[in-house]
């Protein structure tokens, strides 16, 4: 399959982008959660 590079590349690019975005979101959330008392976190 000569198109394999582009096809696998497109899936890799998609998962890398959304994975990076998700990791950044979780990491910033954890850093911020350290500085806020639990009673101010409306989701708990």
């Amino acid at each position: 399959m000569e198109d394999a590079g582009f096809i696998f590349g497109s899936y890799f690019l998609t998962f890398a982008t959304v994975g990076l975005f998700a990791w950044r979101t979780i990491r910033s959330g954890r850093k911020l959660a350290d500085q806020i008392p639990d009673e101010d976190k409306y989701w708990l």
Partner: protein
Amino acid sequence: MTTIDPARTELQPSEPPLPRRSTGTRVTRAVGIACLVAMAWLVAFGLGFSPADRDQKESVRILYVHVPTIWLAYLAFVVTAVSSGLYLFTKKQSLGWDRVAGASAEIGVAFVAVTLAVGSMWGRLTWGVFWQWDARLTTTALLFATYIGYLAVRRLGGSHQQRAKRSAVLGMIAVMEIPLVHFSVKMWRSLHQEATVANLDGDTKMDGIMLFSLFVGVIAFTFLYVWLMLHRTRAMAMEDMLEDRGLDDALVARRAEAAAQQNGAQ
């Protein structure tokens, strides 16, 4: 002989509990797991079970990520516009709506970036070029640039209410680009194919297993969108709280300084 450390056996005074280091809850974990399962299905169907297309051959597999990401980006920008409207036109003017608008726009921008990148790979296989200044591609790039601008406007200085007001106006205007992008293939001569599924005549010109693969993609990216929204809105709420706290601390420090100066003068 076993020795017992008395320090260990004594009851320790209760310490205040540590803050929970996360924006996660049971719901986000459940949505996250559902998202991972759906993504695994997407890979299995997209790269494995789905047959090659008669005309597009194997490149059709790229569409199972390309199409869902742009649909979810449209949804994200519509959520931004609706939340902006709810902020502007409700009596309470809750900053919660502003945060929903901002978080949704961030996710939408990430999804459009994926659409453009993956679409260029599909273009290389189908048209022989990565990019053409075609109506659909150009309007999508314009949509991407508009929402980058929206996110930049959110980062301008001022109070939370000022940020919310100006970005809400922009969020409601920017959403009008979506029909322009979607119908660009009908309005102008375009290299890009017309809608196969989301068309006005309701006729879906797609093989069953291909349609199912696309459906799996839509489900997977919908779970991802919901999961990211929950985490990002919570993180944004904490950012606002910390900014407010910093402002309050600065105000207290300034008042103390002014009081000390007044006492020194007397």
